[in-house]
């Protein structure tokens, strides 16, 4: 059997996962609903009508991070339970294509959720207007989502074939995601500042990009070892 | 911040060093428990082997 081209494999895996999601709606509605509910929780918990600056940035990104945990758990479950891993390992495709496919899936999920959650946040809780901040926000969203997707795809694969997968996934991911949270929250905090006083420090995009790159490399080097049996 | 005088700082320094020692000693104590358990298992095994050897000798005679 000839070895299929990696790009074709990734696309096929991606389409399979997205088709499954469109049919069963396991993850996306839950993530969106969770995000909006979380904003409500913050409103009641913090007893504030509007947020700006550091606090706004923190609330938004912690909520998105926790929503991402829902996806990280679900993204491999179908493979593990229906023998998808075995079928994939037996096929001649390169194993890292599965990792790339899962990273892309998580990225897509996160972007869809952000399309719902960020406007909801702007309407419900954010004090300054979001439009002027958008270009820089987009950069933060892209680099932040990439970090979450890379770490989520690696840890998800690690956790899904253990006996405590629902606990281990979040517990192992969260410390690894703290630098991503730090980078992205500190990046957008001056953007949410009512007085527009803060300028975006250059270090945070650099830190995020480096972190994403390093853990991307680590994930691709180690992924094969997780799929050996 | 002005440095704490000796009589207030002393207990903290002592507490820190004592905590360090206690942690190491607790570790040693746990390892000691495992060691004594292994020692007991080993002596039981030795008894087993001796009994079997004696039984084997009796049968062979």
């Amino acid at each position, binding site marked *: 059997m000839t070895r299929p081209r990696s790009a074709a494999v990734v696309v096929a895996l991606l389409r399979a996962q997205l088709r499954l999601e469109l049919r069963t709606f396991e993850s996306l509605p839950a993530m969106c609903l969770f995000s909006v509910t979380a904003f409500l929780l913050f409103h009641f918990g913090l007893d504030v009508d509007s947020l700006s600056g550091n606090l706004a940035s923190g609330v938004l990104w912690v909520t998105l991070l926790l929503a991402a945990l829902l996806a990280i758990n679900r993204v491999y479950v179908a493979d593990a339970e229906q023998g998808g891993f075995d079928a994939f390992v037996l096929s001649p495709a390169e194993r890292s294509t599965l990792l790339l496919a899962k990273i892309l899936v998580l990225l897509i999920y996160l972007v869809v959720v952000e399309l719902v959650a960020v406007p909801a946040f702007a309407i419900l809780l954010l004090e300054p207007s979001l439009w002027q901040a958008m270009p820089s926000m987009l950069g933060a969203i892209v680099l932040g989502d990439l970090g979450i997707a890379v770490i989520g795809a*690696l840890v998800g694969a*690690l*956790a899904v*074939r*253990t*006996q*405590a*997968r629902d*606990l*281990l996934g979040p*517990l*192992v991911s*969260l*410390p*690894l995601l*703290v*630098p991503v949270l*730090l*980078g992205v929250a*500190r990046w957008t905090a001056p953007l949410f500042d009512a007085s527009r006083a803060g300028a975006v420090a250059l*270090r945070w995009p650099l*830190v995020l990009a480096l*972190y994403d790159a*390093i*853990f991307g490399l*680590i994930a691709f080097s*180690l992924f094969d*070892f*997780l799929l*050996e*049996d | *911040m002005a*440095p*704490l*005088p*000796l009589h*207030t*700082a*002393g207990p*903290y*320094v002592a*507490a*820190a*060093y004592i*905590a*360090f020692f206690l*942690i*190491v000693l607790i*570790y040693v104590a746990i*390892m000691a428990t*495992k*060691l004594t358990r*292994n020692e007991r*298992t*080993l002596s*039981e*095994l030795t008894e*087993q*082997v001796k009994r079997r050897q004696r039984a084997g000798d009796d049968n062979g005679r």
Partner: protein
Amino acid sequence: MYGKGLRPLSLITAAAVALTLAAALFWAPNDAYLGFLQKIFYVHVPLAILTLCGFVAAGLMAVAHLRTRDPRWDMRSYVAIHISLIFGVAVLITGSIWARGAWGHWWVWNDPTLVSFLLVMLLYATYQPLRFAIEDPERQARYASVFAITAGAFVPINFAIVRLAPAYVHPRTLSNISGNLPGRMQVVFYLALFAVTLLWITLWRFEMTAKHVAAQLRQLQNLVGEASDEAPARRSAAPSLTHAGSVS
């Protein structure tokens, strides 16, 4: 044989630790700024350095395990993480005591070392539950190695990143003043670092020996045909050394 040379090593370690204690308490001068409280630093900072190096070393041992598939490397990695976790607990406790003495609170967020430490410890606290959740020993070792490498890479990166956060730009803290120490204090610090390094190595060899003995004992039990009534095949988070015939 892991136990060879353990006794002289322990004796040298004990001597180094005793010498460090004496030097720290009686020979080193009091810090002009922080006073007597600064002496906590001789035990807190070396423990912190050893914990972090230990985690990174465990990651390197895990790399060796994945390359050679020798279960002994997995055991070495497991023990390294275990000892480093214990040292890490000591770091958090001594750091907390220092925070209470210096700032009046049992925890402060303005010391980047302590904060990074808490994060690293929370990550490595998941190592044993992860191992325990996988029954097949070969897969357990493999997955644990993947974790140890990822976490080992995370340790230095996390330290650098936490220091970048705005709150830590000008901290007047324990970790900040370790850079420029005057004469005697520097000598005592390096002595302390040497003693704690020896302590880490001694405890590591000690636990490796204990685990090796336990594995040989289990092998003996199986040979004699005993194992049935006592503790039948309990799930274990620790590597076993008895599979793949690696117990010499």
